[in-house]
């Protein structure tokens, strides 16, 4: 099977869906022919599909999402891009008050086939306004589905599922995985929402994480294996819907859980997962659930600071060792 980068796999998914259904179109800042997206995900698509369907917009985040929403409820299937996840702050009303709630508050009169792509994460020394991980806000917003792909194979299958979903989907990517390669089939495939991917099987501890931290967790598991500790690594792939079963079953097997994301700790998605697991697997837990997150600070610029801000393999290993 050919190896492809996360970036290319994602583009392939977008392209296949645009070929399949002409209602699908993309809009966002600098996604068109001059730039191809800040992370080059849409490079070449404007040339192939035209500037209408790969539409550069003004710097108007709230209107980008709002306009995509208006198009979604009148017969189109928009994929709106917000260049950096930090900038969704400017579109929170349209995302959380309008898109997420529209079907419900209108009593099911409309569905909202809308995908909102954006990118989270640090690691590129882009400082406080271009490095955050804000997925927890959206997990706390009923009416949104949330995809958090970390692998090339997943990103392609999930973007296609997202585009075909009749509900608003927040599709979050991570800056540091665009260049990572994985085997990705050329044939069409879809990945269902709400189905976790188990990257390592293990008996001693479960490690659940998202985005770059899945990769770190795998590295940690490999190293732990050498130390005689068998860790199971679970990547939820979507936060809403959430695959509770795979996680709970794993915890019932291992009795121990370490949660790891790049979010600042307080109120992160890891808090929700910890709360769920202690609710549903209380009697199986042999130790407190450990959370490995960034500290409760804005993301700092300077390399040595950002490096300690972002959790790494060693912090995961330490957390595991504290409870195993």
């Amino acid at each position, binding site marked *: 099977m050919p190896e492809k980068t996360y970036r290319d796999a994602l583009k392939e998914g977008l392209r296949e869906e645009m070929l399949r259904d002409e209602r699908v179109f993309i809009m966002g800042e600098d996604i068109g022919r001059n730039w191809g997206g800040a992370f080059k995900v849409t490079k070449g698509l404007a040339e192939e599909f035209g500037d209408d369907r790969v539409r550069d917009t003004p710097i108007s985040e*709230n*209107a980008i999402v*709002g306009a995509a929403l*208006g198009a979604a409820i009148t017969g189109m299937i928009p994929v709106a891009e917000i260049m950096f996840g930090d900038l969704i702050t400017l579109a929170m009303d349209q995302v959380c008050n309008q898109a997420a709630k529209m079907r419900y*508050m209108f*009593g099911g*009169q409309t569905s909202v086939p809308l995908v909102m792509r954006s990118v989270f994460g640090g690691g590129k020394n882009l400082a406080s306004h271009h490095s955050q991980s804000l997925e927890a806000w959206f997990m706390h917003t009923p009416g949104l589905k949330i995809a958090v792909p970390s692998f090339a194979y997943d990103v392609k299958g999930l973007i296609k599922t997202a585009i075909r979903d009749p509900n608003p989907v927040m599709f979050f990517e991570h800056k540091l995985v665009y260049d990572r390669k994985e085997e990705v089939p050329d044939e069409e495939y879809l990945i269902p929402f709400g189905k976790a991917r188990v990257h390592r099987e293990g008996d001693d501890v479960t490690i659940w994480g998202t985005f770059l931290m899945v990769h770190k967790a795998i590295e940690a598991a490999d190293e732990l294996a050498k130390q005689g500790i068998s860790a199971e690594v679970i990547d939820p792939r979507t936060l809403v819907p959430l695959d509770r079963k795979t996680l709970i079953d794993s915890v019932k097997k291992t009795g121990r859980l370490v949660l790891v994301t790049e979010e600042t700790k307080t109120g992160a998605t890891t808090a929700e997962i910890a709360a769920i697991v202690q609710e549903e697997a209380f009697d199986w837990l042999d130790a407190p659930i450990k959370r490995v997150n960034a500290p409760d600070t804005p993301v700092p610029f300077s390399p040595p600071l950002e490096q300690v801000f972002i959790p790494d393999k060693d912090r995961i290993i330490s957390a595991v060792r504290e409870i195993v």
Partner: protein
Amino acid sequence: MASASKPLSGVTNGGAQKLCVGQVDSIMAVTKKKLVDLYTRTLKVRLFEEKVWDLFGENLVPGTLHLYLGQEAVAAGVTAALKKSDWVQSTHRGHGHVVAKGADMKAALAELLGKRTGSCKGKGGSMHITEFKAGVLGATGVVASGLPIAAGAALSCQMRGTKEVVACFFGDGASNNGTFGESLNMSAIWKLPVIWIVENNFYAMGTPITLTCPSQSIAQRAEAYCIPSCVVDGNNAVEVYEATLEAVKRAREGGGPSLIECQTYRMRGHSRFDPAKYRPKEEVDFWLSKDAVETIQNIALEKKALTKKEAKDIRRKLQKEVDIAADFAVKSEYPEPQEVLDDVFAEVA
């Protein structure tokens, strides 16, 4: 440099000023049939809102309420210039838009009462009163949040090549929100088939426009985006209709957006418990003397589009419709508690 102009206020500018270039200035062009249509729409909204006010008095309307009373000619004039397949985007003051666009009054009233037969199954209420199949994109509780949605719907009309247009209602207060500029600009650069309808009633809750708007008109803001604009008497359905007609024509032909500022006034307070004491008596009197229903009725009578008897017959018929709708709404059931969980997500095919 351009100098600041005298600020706008409810008394000084009431409907007088016209900025439209090329607007049809005589109502001669409007057919008798259309005058009857305008009369009917205006009156229908009026009777609907009076019924809502009664039901509210009987304590049957939960939550708050932003009545459209006084502004009927705006919704009437705009929707009369649209096709059924065209769209309107509504606001927190949405009853009039929805009814004028042809929504089922039974479902609309039931919605206001929180009944499961309501157009939103009781989930929305006054601030979200919406009937999608009548071409209403939605009423929204967040001021100015409808503008980008309308721009997007217009983009969709353009991309799908349907020749549909979108009329987007919003208030004077809404034009101070960031989405206003973002949406107008988007509509201008992409030449979207959207008509921006400012319902300038000179107040945002208790705040008079003089405190929040430095210019003589809201329409002036359209020029920033090279969008053609005009100011009309929002209590005169014919004026509103004519201006909209021109804008609709432009939009359908690919000429892009227009903005129409309809100067009008709330007959009552902002919301259910507001006595609106902050409005000067002379201003209130001025506007009450320009009653929207009387205005269109007088025009229709004068132009012999209607006889007095016909006018009365229409009123009787509409009143009956409204009464039946109210009866339906009152008798309908409330949703069952477990319905709270329904309609968060659409089923995946």
